[in-house]
Structures are given as structure tokens and as C-alpha cells.
């Protein structure tokens, strides 16, 4: 095992030869060049951050390194030798490990079984037992506590990430790629991860750290490479970099997220939630006794690390998930466990978290998607028959108003770009004066322009008197848009603060479940 | 004027047609419900077809196998188009289609096996086994030690019920306390079901077997356990030479021969068949009680698979039929009963005595000679009476001594 060999002095000389080097790598997909002549390397004993917005091509680049994609041109050098990496198996053999953004874990299996999967040198019989022993050794050495016999689906996101890191170490990874590792972690867990990373640095590993969060990158990295639209903007030493500089490189212009936001004039309650309990897909309690209210003309933000019950909460409020106990009132009416259709009919708009899987019907046309929620009501449907002319008229207006870029209203929705799909969903949901907007991660994965446009739209709804429930992992976004902020942790609301007096640290503690603030 | 001329021409043509039919070649089409490779009904018809085909120069035959019952008319159309002037349809289910086709093709002769609808150009024919089953029953009654005889039936239809009751009457005649246990497989041809049904009967203690099903399954399964059985339809002796006691064999060629020759000779025409109904039994030689058939046509290159198997190269000698397997001769001769009509008699002798009564053209005995009681105790045939043909072909009751399910029992 290579990890065992590297117990000598950590090698931190900046001029030591790189462990891996990607040279002039180009990779394109139909209609988009994801990587355009990208050169990137990582040396032993350093954390090299890859910074960029969503869609900048970071993940594609490391997928090339990990053998998931073949580059169209360019090549990869490992320890100075030119190699062709055809599959992850070959990448692993070359000492490259990767922790994907979406963990590659087999949920019903145990930790040890996951670790043993595809691992060279595991015993044929009872592989889990042998691997379990090695797992314990490694977790002690790197400070990654995890029980090998537990089923992965029982673990928290942080623990699952540890399993992924252990899997890579077990395979003798000298280079570890971490794709957006902190997106699922609480600030506290992030701190622990950073400790592990410095341990790895000391042991002589090279770490590629992918992120779009400036603070983290500055905190953990030795060098930072910034990517934008498939190209490398530049590589800088972390010691000499600061936030504005990185942000400029990342976005290509000065970033001023200054939304004109008038003072909040809260009206009557749009939504009242009283002590609701909801289970997740596995039947375990996910939302435990949550109560809050959202007024008309107010944006109520819910911050928190993903997987703490936000998804279940939103789905329950949209009528998609059964509420076991508690009560939900919208505009004063008890609508607990009413159907999604009834909720939509009384004015609940829902911008779902998974926009392609849930928000649109990929094979149906743009205009058909625009009437998804109201296809059963006049003017679109009378006596069971659809009315194509009204559909067309409505679609044309919506397409123009929201600037949805499509060649034709009959185009299948799946051919639209991500931003346009989200615009389509908002155009549909926000038409007809909703009383309550449930927006789950509305700007996730969108480019800056679309993000701004969508935030604008939400603010307009607030001004028009709708209550907006905004769930986002992006703390900046929540702090910027919301009038009040609640933090969810393990299915409970750990506290509610008003946006004006909120401090990052305080919210961070709440996200870790540390402190309860009455608000 | 014109009209009359037309009528005359048509009449003349019809006459020529009818005469021509008598003198010229006959092309006979056979429509089978199953594959010719089964070991029962369709196979037997096809063997018979080949025999008559070989025998007569003036006869040409074609066949179509595995015809679904609802599709028979389509195939009749095609056969007529190919020039067939005699068509045999060999399944009861073809009854409606054949009858309809007979109306549509008045110049074609039809014969339908096992049915009851006739027309001037449509006859019916059947070779029936109930006498043979009775003879087998006599032997089975003598051979059972447990007093339980097993019977695997295909479908609970009158034909099979008649056979089972005749068989049971035979069993009871020599063994008044024995029972015949019946299991149905609801298929004419399903070896797996036949096997499982036999196993079920064995598990119930049956030690002699008879059946109505188109495969030698029952014979083989019984033989594996060392139990005797009776073959059905085709000679099954070779499958278990030590265990096939006797069996029921059919000779459709006897009926086909008679029918086709009579057409050839102009006796049967498209106008006089409304009352032609072959119901041929032992006396006419259409069926036979034997483990191995008597006649083997060997000069005609292997007409029967079975004869091929036993005398390859087709240098067969004509052997007498094996009515009773010699292995069981001793046992049957040793089993004597006190018979009300014949006094003390061995079952072996009784079998031949009855056989001769059936084979006598005058037929002096019938298995269902009254008094016959069904198993519920009702008198179904009064003392001294025989059953009418209509009663025979519609009988639903079970003779006393039958045990097991009997769907449709009155």
C-alpha cells in the first residue's frame, strides 16, 4: 500500500515534480466545450484548489483525470510519465482517488462492503471482515471515525464522506480528488474535514479540492486554480490571494450582489405550520415537530446543510408527502395532507428542488409543460377536452415575459438549457398570483445571469404580496433575500433570526445544532 | 328458354362431376387438431392416412396439423383450393366449421370424426374403445393387490367417462370391492401433468393403471415403480415390456379404407351421407385389445413408427397380436372367480370369452348390460337392457366403483 510507504518527512517543496499533470486537455459534449486546453497539476504534499462557478468545467476536468471521460485532445502525466486513463480502475491503479459530489456508495451495503468493492487484494471469502480491520487502522491514522459494519444508508452525509475518503485511501490514493466536499457538511464538519486534509498533506498526498466557495478555498488550499467557462483563468498561491481577486477571476467581472430590496411589510399569515412530523423515503422521521409561519409579503429563508429535513418539509407543504402529526394552514385554512392539486389550486406555487426530474416533463413540449399545473382547469381544459389555442396563447405570453429561449413552443422541454428550464418552471408557477411560493434551491447550478433574474422574480413576488418560503444551501443567498431566517438541523428548527441581525457565525452554529435562539 | 338451358347445363355438369368423382382420382385432405408427433389421436390418424395412401393408386392425401378449432374453415378453403374432394376433420371442435364448409362446398365430401352433425355431403365417424376398456378392466381387477386401480383421464367428457365406467365395470366384475381412482389432467397431451397425476395416484395406493391421454407417460411412470398398466391408443409395449399388460389400439385405417373405397366405387356421393355414421368397435376391427398390434404393414416402407422400432429395416413378419403380455399370463390364469354366467373361470379365459362375444359380428354382450347402477346407487340401465347409442355418447354418470372427482355428475 502506498499510503503505508509515505511515512517519512512530508515533502512540501514547491518545485517537487507533480504527482499528476493534465496537459492541454480539451473535452467537448454535444453543443458545449466543457474543457478547453486546460493544464493543471498537483504536487505531493499540497492541496490544490480548483475554483469556479457551477458549469465552469471543474468536474469534467477531474472526470478526465479519473478515467470517466476520454479527452478529445491533450494528455495526462502521472509522476512524469504520459499515461492513458481509460477507466476509473486504471486511475485507481495509478494512485488517483476521487470523492464525488454525489457519493458513489451502495446504500444498502455496509461500510466494509462498500470499501471492499473492487478493491485489489481483498480476500475472496468474507471480504468485508478483512477490509473492516484495515478500515479501522486507517480511520485511526487519519482521524476518520466510522463503523465498518454499519449500513451506509444509516450514516449522515459527513460520515458517508468519510467512507468515501477511506475508500480512496484504502486503494492507495496518492492523489485525492474532492468534488465540492463541503456542500453537504455543517461548518463544524467542514472543520474536521480540513483537519483530515492537513493530515493527508503531512503524509505526502496531493489533494485536488474542488469548490466554488472562496472562504474555504483560501482556508484550506496551498495553490488555487480558477476556471471559467471551460478555461483556466489563472493559478495563484493561496498565500497571495484574497477574496475579491478570486471572485473577479471566477465571474469575470466585479461581483456586486446588490438587489434592490424594499423594506418588508408583512401582512397576514400566508402559511402557518404547527408542529408537523414527516418521514423520509426510508420511513425514518425527517421533520420533527417543526412550527413556523410565513407572512404575506415576506421571504422566509430556511438555511441548513442538505439532508436535515428541508426536502421533506417542502414536499410535505406541497402536498407530496404525508404529514404524520401537526397542522398546516394556508391563508387560514387547514390544508393538512390535502392533495397537491388542491394546494396548487388555492395558490401554492412550488419550485421543486429537482427541476428536471420533478419540475418538467422532459418529453413534452414547452407549451405543454407550461400548463402542467393548470391543465385541468379552464381555459385550458373544458369538459375533459384540451383547448390548444388557449394553451398556445398562454405559452407565447409566458415565453416572452420570462425570456425563455426556445426555438418554438413545441420543442421538447428536455432540449432547453438548465437556466431556461428553471425559467419555464417559474413562469408556470408564478403565473396567476400565488399566495405562497415554495422555492427549493431555486438558483442551484445556474449561471450568474439566470441567478440574478430568478432572485429578482422572487423579490417581485414578495412585493406583490405573496409569502415566499426559500430553502437554500447557499447561506449568502438566504441572508441576502430573506426577511427572516430559520435554520434546520436534524429535522428541527434550531432557531429563527431576522435577517438584519443575523451573523454568519451564529447561523453556522445553528446549522450544527449547537444553539437555540428564540426569534 | 335460356333459363332452362342453364339448368340443363348445370345438371349435366353436376352429373359428370358426380360420376367423375367416382371414377377418377381422389384427393383427400386431413385436418388435425394436434401435431402428428403426439403419441395418440393425431398420430394414429396420420398413420392411418399413410396406410391408405400407400394402399391405393387412385388416392392422394395431404394433411395439415395443429389447426386451431376456430380456424378450420380457413384451412378447408385452402384444401379445396388445392383440389381436395374429400376432407376429413379429426377433432370434435371442428364440428361447426366443417358443417358450415359442407354447406359452402356441396361438391366436396366431408367426414368429421367424433361429431354428430351430418349433411348430404358430410358423414361422421368414430372408433370407440369402451369394449376394450372393459376387457382391460377385467385384467386390472385381477392384478390389483391393494384393491385400488388408478386411472388418469384427459377431460371429463362423455367419451372418457364412458371408458372409465366400462373399465370399472370390468374391474368390479372380477373384484367386487376394488375401486378405480380417477385424476383428470384437463389436457389431451401433457406429459408433465400425466406424470404428476400418476404420482398422486401412486401416493394414494393405486397399483394398476389405465389412462386416456396421448403420451406413454403413465406407462413409464408406473413401470419405474414396477407397477403394471395398460397402453392407450398407440402400442406402448416397447416402453415397458415387463409392465404393459395389454392396451387399447385403434385402426382408423379400417374406417378410412372403407369410406374412401365406397366413394371411389361411387357408393358414397355428395348426396347420400346424411345418415352415414361410423360407430365402429371391436367387431369391425377399428379397435383392438392388445399390447402389440396384430398386423404390421412392412412392405410399405415403415408406415408405423412402432413397427419400425421393433423390426428395423422393415423386414417385418406378420405377427399375431399380443392380447395379453405373457409376463401376466400366469397371474391372470391363476386368478379365478365364480362368475354368475360362466361359473368358476380364470380371468384369462374370461377376457378371451368376452373378447369373442364382442368380436362376433352379432355382438352378444355389452359391458353396460343392465342392470347397471351409477355410483350414487341409481339404476341407470335396467336389467337385461343395453344402452342406446345416444345414451352411450352422452353419458355423464359414473359406474359404481369409481372414486374421485367427476365433474358434471348428474
Amino acid at each position, binding site marked *: 500500500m502506498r499510503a503505508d510507504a509515505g511515512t517519512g518527512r512530508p515533502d512540501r517543496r514547491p518545485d517537487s515534480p507533480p504527482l499528476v499533470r493534465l496537459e492541454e486537455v480539451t473535452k467537448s459534449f454535444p453543443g458545449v466545450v466543457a474543457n478547453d486546453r486546460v493544464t493543471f497539476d498537483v504536487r505531493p504534499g499540497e492541496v490544490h484548489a480548483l475554483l469556479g462557478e457551477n458549469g465552469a468545467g471543474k468536474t469534467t476536468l477531474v472526470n478526465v483525470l479519473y478515467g470517466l471521460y476520454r479527452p478529445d485532445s491533450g494528455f495526462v502525466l502521472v509522476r512524469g510519465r504520459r499515461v492513458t486513463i481509460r477507466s476509473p480502475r486504471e486511475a485507481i491503479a495509478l494512485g488517483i482517488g476521487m470523492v464525488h459530489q454525489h457519493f458513489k456508495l451502495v446504500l444498502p451495503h455496509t461500510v466494509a462492503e462498500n470499501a471492499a*468493492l*473492487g478493491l485489489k487484494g481483498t480476500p475472496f471469502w468474507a471480504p468485508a471482515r478483512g477490509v473492516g480491520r484495515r478500515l479501522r487502522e486507517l480511520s485511526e491514522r487519519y482521524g476518520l471515525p466510522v463503523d465498518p459494519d454499519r449500513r451506509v444508508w444509516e450514516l449522515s452525509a459527513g460520515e458517508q464522506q468519510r467512507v468515501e475518503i477511506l475508500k480512496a485511501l484504502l486503494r492507495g490514493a496518492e492523489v485525492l480528488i474532492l468534488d465540492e466536499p463541503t456542500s453537504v457538511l455543517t461548518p463544524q464538519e467542514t472543520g474536521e474535514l480540513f483537519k483530515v486534509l492537513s493530515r493527508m498533506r503531512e503524509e505526502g498526498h496531493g489533494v485536488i479540492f474542488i469548490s466554488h466557495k472562496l472562504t474555504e478555498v483560501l482556508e484550506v488550499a496551498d495553490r488555487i486554480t480558477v476556471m471559467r467557462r471551460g478555461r483556466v483563468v489563472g493559478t495563484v498561491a493561496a498565500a497571495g490571494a484574497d477574496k475579491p481577486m478570486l471572485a473577479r477571476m471566477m465571474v469575470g467581472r466585479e461581483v456586486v450582489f446588490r438587489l434592490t430590496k424594499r423594506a418588508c411589510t408583512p401582512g397576514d399569515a400566508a402559511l402557518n405550520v404547527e408542529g408537523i412530523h414527516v418521514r423520509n423515503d426510508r420511513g425514518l422521521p425527517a421533520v420533527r415537530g417543526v412550527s413556523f409561519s410565513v407572512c404575506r409579503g415576506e421571504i422566509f429563508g430556511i438555511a441548513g446543510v442538505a439532508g436535515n429535513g428541508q426536502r421533506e418539509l417542502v414536499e410535505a407543504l406541497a402536498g407530496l408527502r404525508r404529514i404524520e402529526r401537526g397542522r398546516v394552514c394556508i391563508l387560514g385554512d387547514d390544508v393538512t395532507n390535502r392533495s397537491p392539486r388542491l394546494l396548487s389550486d388555492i395558490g401554492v406555487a412550488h419550485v421543486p428542488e429537482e427541476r428536471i426530474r420533478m419540475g418538467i416533463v422532459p418529453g413534452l413540449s414547452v407549451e405543454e409543460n407550461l400548463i402542467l399545473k393548470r391543465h385541468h382547469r379552464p381555459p385550458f381544459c373544458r369538459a375533459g377536452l384540451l383547448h390548444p389555442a388557449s394553451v398556445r396563447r398562454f405559452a407565447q405570453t409566458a415565453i416572452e415575459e420570462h425570456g425563455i429561449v426556445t426555438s418554438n413552443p413545441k420543442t421538447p422541454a428536455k432540449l432547453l438549457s438548465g437556466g431556461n428550464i428553471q425559467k419555464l418552471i417559474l413562469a408556470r408557477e408564478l403565473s396567476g398570483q400565488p399566495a405562497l411560493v415554495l422555492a427549493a434551491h431555486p438558483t442551484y447550478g445556474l449561471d450568474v445571469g439566470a441567478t440574478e433574474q430568478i432572485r429578482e422574480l422572487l423579490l417581485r413576488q414578495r412585493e406583490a404580496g405573496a409569502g415566499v418560503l426559500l430553502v437554500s444551501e447557499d447561506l449568502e443567498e438566504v441572508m441576502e433575500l430573506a426577511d427572516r431566517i430559520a435554520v434546520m438541523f436534524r429535522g428541527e428548527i434550531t432557531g429563527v433570526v431576522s435577517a438584519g441581525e443575523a451573523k454568519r457565525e451564529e447561523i453556522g452554529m445553528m446549522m450544527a445544532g449547537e444553539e437555540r435562539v428564540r426569534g | 328458354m335460356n333459363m332452362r338451358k342453364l339448368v340443363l347445363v348445370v345438371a349435366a355438369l353436376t352429373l359428370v362431376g358426380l360420376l367423375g368423382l367416382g371414377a377418377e382420382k381422389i384427393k383427400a385432405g386431413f385436418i388435425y387438431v394436434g401435431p402428428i*408427433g403426439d*403419441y395418440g389421436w393425431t398420430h394414429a390418424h396420420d398413420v392411418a392416412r399413410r396406410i391408405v395412401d400407400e394402399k391405393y393408386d387412385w388416392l392422394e392425401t395431404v394433411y395439415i396439423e395443429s389447426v386451431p378449432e376456430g380456424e378450420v374453415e380457413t384451412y378447408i378453403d385452402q384444401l379445396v383450393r388445392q383440389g381436395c374432394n374429400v376432407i376429413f376433420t379429426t377433432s370434435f371442435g371442428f364440428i361447426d366449421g366443417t358443417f358450415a364448409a359442407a354447406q359452402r362446398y356441396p361438391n366436396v365430401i366431408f367426414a368429421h370424426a367424433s361429431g354428430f352433425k351430418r349433411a348430404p355431403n358430410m358423414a361422421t365417424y368414430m372408433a370407440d374403445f369402451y369394449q376394450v376398456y372393459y376387457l382391460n378392466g377385467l385384467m386390472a381387477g385381477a392384478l390389483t393387490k391393494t384393491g385400488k386401480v388408478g386411472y388418469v383421464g384427459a377431460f371429463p367428457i362423455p367419451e372418457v367417462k364412458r371408458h372409465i365406467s366400462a373399465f370399472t365395470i370390468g374391474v368390479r366384475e372380477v373384484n367386487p370391492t376394488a375401486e378405480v381412482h380417477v385424476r*383428470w389432467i384437463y389436457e389431451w397431451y401433457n406429459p408433465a401433468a400425466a*406424470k*404428476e397425476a400418476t404420482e*398422486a395416484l401412486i401416493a394414494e395406493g393405486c397399483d394398476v393403471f389405465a389412462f386416456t391421454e*396421448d403420451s406413454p*407417460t403413465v406407462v413409464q411412470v408406473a413401470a419405474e415403480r414396477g407397477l403394471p398398466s395398460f397402453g392407450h391408443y398407440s402400442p406402448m409395449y416397447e416402453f415397458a415390456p415387463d409392465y404393459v399388460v395389454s392396451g387399447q389400439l385403434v385402426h382408423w385405417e379400417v374406417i378410412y379404407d372403407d369410406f374412401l373405397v365406397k366413394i371411389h366405387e361411387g357408393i358414397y356421393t355428395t348426396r347420400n351421407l346424411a345418415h352415414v355414421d361410423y360407430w365402429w368397435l371391436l367387431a369391425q376391427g377399428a379397435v383392438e385389445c392388445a399390447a402389440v398390434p396384430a398386423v404390421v404393414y412392412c412392405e410399405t416402407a415403415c408406415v408405423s413408427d412402432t413397427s419400425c422400432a421393433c423390426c428395423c429395416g422393415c423386414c417385418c413378419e406378420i405377427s399375431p397380436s399380443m392380447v395379453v403380455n405373457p409376463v401376466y399370463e400366469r397371474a391372470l390364469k391363476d386368478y379365478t372367480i365364480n362368475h354368475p354366467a360362466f361359473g368358476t373361470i380364470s380371468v384369462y379365459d374370461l377376457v378371451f370369452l368376452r373378447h369373442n362375444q364382442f368380436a362376433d359380428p352379432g355382438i352378444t354382450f355389452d359391458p353396460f348390460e343392465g342392470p347397471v347402477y351409477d355410483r350414487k346407487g341409481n339404476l341407470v340401465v335396467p336389467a337385461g337392457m343395453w344402452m342406446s347409442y345416444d345414451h352411450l355418447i352422452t353419458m355423464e354418470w359414473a359406474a359404481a366403483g369409481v372414486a374421485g372427482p367427476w365433474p358434471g355428475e348428474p
Partner: protein
Amino acid sequence: MDLGWLVSTVSRALAFGVPLLWGTLGEIYAERSGVVNLGVEGMMILGAYAGFAVAQTLGHPGWGLLAAAAVGVVAAVWHAFLTVTLRANQYVSGLALTLFGLGLAGLLGRGWEGRPLRVPLGTITVPSLAEIPVLGPMLFVDQTILTYLGILLAVVLWVVLFRTRWGIAIRSVGESPATADSLGINVTVVRYLCVALGGLLAGVGGGYLSVAYRPSWTEGMTAGMGWIVIALTIFASWDPLQAIWGAFFFGALYHLSFRLQAYVSPELLKLMPYAFAILVLAVSGFGGARWRRRAPGSLGVPYVRGER
């Protein structure tokens, strides 16, 4: 009720359950790797045909079973090619395989129809164990070697699936092929192998019918067993050990449909396995997510690398 009933029912259940058991074990492996193969009926009938034809020609049942296995593998690899390589719809491909298999076997088997096999696979009596009262005649008499091999195989396959490296790979491919792929497991190869194993076992199951259970060739002799296998796979929760008793339970049902004819309408008894399959599925649908017998996570879904 006397012991005789029990003895004969269990004994017959073992004999009739063998093809179900072999077929089910194979289907479990195929489905564990994420590929539904509705072509079991087709593979079994082809196996039955090939088994009979070869055993009859070469005069030894062993060759017949080998041929049955080989033919099953060929048919299954064809299914794998369509569904794994060409990513065709697994349900339709399986149905096509069944249609094709039934047709082809019937076509090729015409010459063999009805003829009994010269040298069937004999039954064995396990020495000394057969002497045990009740249990002896119940379990150790009148069975072919395939009964015991099948049970042994079930145990071996269970161990392989849950206690070896290969098992982890197979289950991972069925649950989450992307994960397995990212760790260097060749998803295509694993699926091909598992589907091929499924074909091999289904072929042997079919071969058993024509070489041992009812040593003759009959068109359509599998008579819907392939579909019972599909139901059994679910019934057994994709677990080889549970397949043992599932197969023998359905075997017992078939036997009882003849035993109980006097008391229950035979059609009712014959439709029981089918109704029972639906019933079991429905009952396991009650009781919420935790109780549900889970199908492999990506069952029926073709794997495309890098597809998002």
C-alpha cells in the same frame, strides 16, 4: 392425516420443484446484477429441447444436461447483448426471447415429439439416509442428483452472493452500477456473466424436464414454468436460500392440485401458483417501506456511463 400424505407430497414437491429452483437461482443472479430476464420460459424450453436431442443422440443424459446448459447460456447472452450492450428494453427483449424460444424449440423438436428418451437421468437412493423413517422416503428416495445439486447450488450461490468479493461486485452492479463502475468494476462484464449464469441454470432446469422429470420431448413442455420462476424470484426476495423453499412450496402446490382434485376444482388449484404470486407481491406491498422486500436498486435500468 397420515404420514403417507406428507411423505409423498414432500417427495413430489422436491421432484417438481427442481426446474423451478434452478431457474429461480439463475434469475436471482441476473436480477441481482440489474437485468430482468423475462425469457426464462424461452431459455427453459430451448434447454429442454437441446437436453433431449443431445441425450437421445449421444445416449447419455449428462451430455444432454450439458447441452441444455450451453443452449441456455447462448440464449441468455443474446438477451444480455440486446439489453446490456444495445440497452434495449429488458421486458420486451425477454418476451421476444420467450416467443422465439418456444417457436424455435417447437420447430426443431418436431422429429423428436412424443418419443421417450432412451437413457433418462436415473433417480438415486441415498444410502443409509434413505433408511431413516419418514424422512428417508421423504427426502432421500426417488430423487435425481439435480435435486441435491440444486439445493447445494443454492447454498453456494448464497455464500458467493453475500460472503465473497464477487458477491459484493454483483450486488453493487445491481444496486448502483455507476458506483461499481467508478471503482473499476466492469458493469458490462458482470451483467453478461450473471445473465449468462441465469441462462445456464434455466437451461439445466429445462433440461431436467426432458431428461429426468419426464424423459421425452413435448412441444411447450415447460408449460408456463418460466413465468412461475419470475414470480418465485420476487417471492424469494432475490435470496438464493429462500428460493429453495419457495420452489418446493410451488412444487407441492402442483402436486396437490392432483392430490386434492376430489375436493377442489382443478382449475382453481392450477391457477393457484399464479394467484399466489400476485398475492405475495400484494401482501409485501403492505406495511410500508421498511417491510417491503426491496428489488435491486437499478433493476431493469440499462447502464450508460456518464449519463446524467
